[in-house]
C-alpha cells in the first residue's frame, strides 16, 4: 500500500522543487491521499505548511529514504484536512490557520495555536491580512475525561525556563492528560524571511531555536543553495559538519545536565559543566561565537577555520573525551539514577514511527532515520550505523545522548584530520526556484522550505523537530506522575521557540 501510493504520487506531474519535485494534487487527489495516509505502511507526515495559495505536505516513505512533497490549491479559503487520519497534522493545521488563514476542512481541531488572539493582524502571511480590532480569546483547552482536577502551569515558571503553558488534568499525583500551549515566543520569523535575500534572511533562520542554531542555519542555507543552483565548496561542507557535530555535543551535554537537575542527581550537572564550557570557549576561538550562531551562511560558512581554531577544538574535544567515562558511570544501568529514569516518559516504537520522530527521541524508540547518513552528504560518508537504542524511556534517551557524544567525537576527529583545502564560500546567485533543505540537529531533523523569486525569498517554512515531539510528549505523560514532568521535558529536550516561528 505504502510504496504503491508513493509511486502513484510520483507518476503525477511535478513542479520544480529540489531535490525531489513537488506534486501538485487536485482536490480529489488530495482527498484520496488523505484517506490512504491513515494506513500503517503509508508515508509518514513530516510537515504541513502553506503559502498564500497552496498547502504543502512533506511525506517520508516508511523504512526507506524516499521523500515526497505534495501540495494542493486552497479553494474557498480551505483545504481537506489531514488530521482525521493523522493526529500529528492537527498542530500544523492550526498553525496554517493562524499564519495563512486557510481552514482545514473536516479537521479535528479548529482552535488557534500560535495566535493567542493578540496579534495585530489576522492571518499575517495570507494574501490579504485582516486587521484585528479586538483581542480574541486564546481558545479553550481540550476537555479531559473522567474525574480530575486541573493544574495550569506557565507560561511563566518563576525560573529561567522556556515559555510554555502546561495544562494538566491530574488525579492525585497521576497525570490523566497533558496539553501544551506554545506560541509565547512568536517572532514572526516567516514574515521576516519574506522579501529578503537568503544571505540577509539567514540571520533570522539561525535565531529560530537556540538548541539548533547551526541546524536551522544549515537547513536554511541548503534550501537556499538548492533553490538557486549553487554548490558549496568541499571545505565548506566539511566545516558545516564540524559545526553541526560541535553543536550536537554541546546540546547533548546540556540535556544531560538538565536531566540530572530534574531528579536532583547533583554529580551529573557538575560533571557536564567543565566540558560544556570548554566547547563554548573553543567555539569562540575557532568560529567567533560561543554558541556558533551565524557561522553557517548560504553559499558556505562565514569564516574559515585556522590552525589555532583546529587546535582549540581538539583541546575541547579532549576535555569532553575525558569527562565521558565519568558521565557513563553516573548513568550506568546499576545506578540509582538509572532506576529512577527507567520507565519514565516511555515512547512506544509504534507511536514514534507513526509520528516519524527523529533525533534522540526517535532513535531511542526505534526510528532509525538519520539525515546525516541516509541523505546524501559527502562530509558524513564515514558515519557508521547509529548506536543501537536500548529502550524508549528517559534512561534509554540519556544513554543514547552519551553514545551520540562519543560518535560525534570520533566523527569530529576524522573530519578535522582531513579537512579539504579550498574556498569556504561561493557568492550567491540571483535565481528563481524552490527547494527543501535539511540538517540533522541534536534534537532531530530540521527541514526548511524556500521559494526564491529573483533571488528574494517569496515564501518559506521551517520545521523544527519539536513540531512532532511536543504531541508525543503529551502522549507519553498520560498516566505518568506530575513530579516526572520536568524529567520528561528534559529528556525530550524539545525547543519551544522552534515551534513558535
Amino acid at each position, binding site marked *: 500500500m505504502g510504496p504503491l501510493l508513493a509511486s502513484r504520487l510520483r507518476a503525477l506531474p511535478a513542479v520544480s522543487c529540489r531535490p525531489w519535485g513537488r506534486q501538485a494534487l487536485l482536490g480529489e487527489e488530495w482527498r484520496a491521499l488523505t484517506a490512504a495516509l491513515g494506513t500503517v505502511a503509508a508515508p509518514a507526515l513530516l510537515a504541513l505548511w502553506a503559502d498564500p495559495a497552496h498547502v504543502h505536505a512533506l511525506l517520508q516513505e516508511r523504512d526507506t529514504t524516499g521523500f515526497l512533497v505534495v501540495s494542493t490549491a486552497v479553494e474557498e479559503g480551505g483545504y481537506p484536512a489531514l488530521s482525521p487520519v493523522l493526529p500529528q497534522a492537527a498542530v500544523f493545521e492550526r498553525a496554517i490557520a493562524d499564519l495563512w488563514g486557510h481552514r482545514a476542512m473536516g479537521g479535528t481541531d479548529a482552535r488557534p495555536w500560535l495566535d493567542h488572539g493578540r496579534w495585530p493582524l489576522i492571518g499575517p502571511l495570507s494574501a490579504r491580512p485582516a486587521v484585528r480590532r479586538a483581542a480574541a480569546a486564546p481558545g479553550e483547552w481540550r476537555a479531559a475525561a473522567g474525574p480530575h*482536577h*486541573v*493544574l*495550569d*502551569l506557565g507560561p511563566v*515558571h*518563576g*525560573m529561567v*525556563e522556556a515559555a510554555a503553558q502546561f495544562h494538566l488534568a491530574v488525579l*492525585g*499525583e497521576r497525570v490523566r492528560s497533558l496539553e501544551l500551549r506554545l506560541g509565547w515566543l512568536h517572532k514572526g520569523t516567516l514574515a521576516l524571511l519574506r522579501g529578503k535575500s537568503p544571505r540577509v534572511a539567514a540571520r533570522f533562520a539561525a535565531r529560530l531555536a537556540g538548541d539548533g542554531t547551526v541546524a536551522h542555519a544549515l537547513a536554511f542555507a541548503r534550501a537556499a543553495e538548492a533553490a538557486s543552483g549553487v554548490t558549496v565548496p568541499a571545505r565548506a561542507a566539511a566545516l558545516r559538519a564540524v559545526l553541526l557535530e560541535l553543536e550536537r555535543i554541546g546540546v547533548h551535554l546540556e540535556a544531560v545536565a538538565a536531566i540530572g*537537575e*530534574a*531528579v*536532583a*542527581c*547533583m*554529580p551529573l*550537572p*557538575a*560533571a557536564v*559543566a567543565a566540558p560544556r564550557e570548554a566547547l563554548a570557549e573553543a567555539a569562540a576561538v575557532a568560529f567567533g561565537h560561543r554558541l556558533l550562531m551565524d557561522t553557517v551562511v548560504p553559499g558556505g560558512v562565514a569564516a574559515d577555520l585556522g590552525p589555532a581554531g583546529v587546535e582549540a577544538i581538539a583541546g575541547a574535544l579532549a576535555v569532553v573525551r575525558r569527562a565521558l567515562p565519568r558521565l557513563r558511570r553516573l548513568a550506568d544501568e546499576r545506578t*540509582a*539514577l538509572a532506576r*529512577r529514569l527507567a520507565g519514565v516518559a516511555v515512547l512506544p516504537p509504534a507511536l514514534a514511527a507513526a509520528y516519524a520522530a527523529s533525533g534522540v527521541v526517535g532513535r531511542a524508540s526505534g526510528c532509525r532515520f538519520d539525515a546525516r547518513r541516509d541523505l546524501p552528504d559527502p562530509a558524513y560518508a564515514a558515519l557508521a550505523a547509529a548506536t543501537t537504542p536500548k529502550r524508549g524511556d528517559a534512561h534509554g534517551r540519556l544513554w543514547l545522548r552519551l553514545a551520540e557524544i562519543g560518535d560525534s567525537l570520533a566523527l569530529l576527529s576524522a573530519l578535522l584530520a582531513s579537512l579539504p583545502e579550498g574556498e569556504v564560500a561561493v557568492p550567491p546567485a540571483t535565481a528563481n526556484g524552490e527547494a527543501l533543505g535539511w540538517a540533522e540537529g541534536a534534537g532531530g531533523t530540521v527541514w526548511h522550505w524556500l521559494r526564491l523569486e529573483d533571488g528574494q525569498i517569496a515564501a518559506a517554512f521551517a520545521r523544527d523537530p519539536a513540531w512532532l515531539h511536543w504531541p508525543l510528549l503529551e502522549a507519553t505523560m498520560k498516566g505518568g*506522575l*506530575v*513530579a516526572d*514532568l*520536568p524529567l520528561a*521535558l528534559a529528556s525530550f529536550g524539545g525547543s519551544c521557540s522552534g515551534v513558535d516561528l
Partner: protein
Amino acid sequence: VSTIAGLLPGLLQLALMLAVAPVLAGGADWLRARLAGRAGPPPLQYWRDLVRLARKDPVLPANASWLFRAAPAVVLAATIAAAALVPAFALPTAAAPLADLLLLVGLLALARAVLLLAGLDAGTAIGGLGASRLAATALPVAPALFAALLALGLLAGGTNLVGVLRVLRGGSVMVRLPALLAVAALLPVALAALGRAPLADPAGRHETGLLQGAVAFAYSARHLALLRAAAALELLLWLTVLGNLCLPFGLVDARPAPLAWLLAAPLWGLKLAAGGAALAVLEARTVTARPERLAAGCGLAVLLGVVAVLLCCLGQGQV
C-alpha cells in the same frame, strides 16, 4: 533573680538556635554542592539571603487573603515555640515541664497545617499541588511517628523530652537500643517534614518536583524570608532532637553553670555539623525518589518503631 536565672538557659539556647539555624542550612547547601563537585554558596549565604529578602516588599498572588499574608509569621512563630521547648545542651530550662514530645510534634504540625492552608488560599496551581503533597506526606509518616513516640514514652515513663534524655543519659544498652531504633523510625518522618532528599529537592528548579517549596513558590520578599528562616530552624530542631536522642552526651543537667555550657555548646554544634553533613551526603548521593517510595520507607520505619516498642516492653518486663 531566681526566675531570671531559671529563664537564662532556655533563652540562651533559643538565641543560639536562631543564630545557628541559617548557618546550618547554608552549611548543608555548601557541603552538598562541594560533594557534587561545585564550588557551592558560602555557608553564610543562607543568612545573607534572609537579610536580603527581609528588606524587600512582597508581591502577592491576586487572590491571596489575610491568611496567606499571616501564614509565614505563624509558621515561624510555631517553629520558634517548638524550638523554645527543645533542650539543645542544657536540660533544666524554665520550659522543661512543657517540653513534651507530643506538644513539640503538635507545634510543628500546626506550622504545616497553616502552610497547607496558605497553599490552598492563594488559589495558584502550584500552591494547591504543594498543599495536597503536604497532606499526602503527613499521612504515611504518622504511624512511624506514633510508634517512635510510644517507644520513647515507654522508655522514660512519659513523653517529656527532658525526661527521656535524662533516662537515656544514664541508661544502659537495653535503654539506648530502643532509642536508636526509635530515631531510625523518625528519620523518614523528619525528611518528609523537612521536604528534603530523597523525597524532594529543596533546591529544585522545577515547580512540579517540590514539596514544601511548592507552597513557598508563591511567596516572595520578607514573607519568603520568614518561611526560609522557619525551614532552617525546623532542620536544626530535628537534628538537635535526633542527635541528642542518638548521642545523649554533653547535656548539662545543673542549674546555671556557665563553664559547663561553654563545653556543652560546642559539642551540640558538633552533633549538628555531623547531622547536617549526613544530610548533605544523602542529598548529594541520591536522586529524587518517586512519591510512592515514601510509603515503602515509612513501612520500614513503622517496623523499626514497633521493634523498639517491643524491646521496651521486654526490658521493662525484666526489670
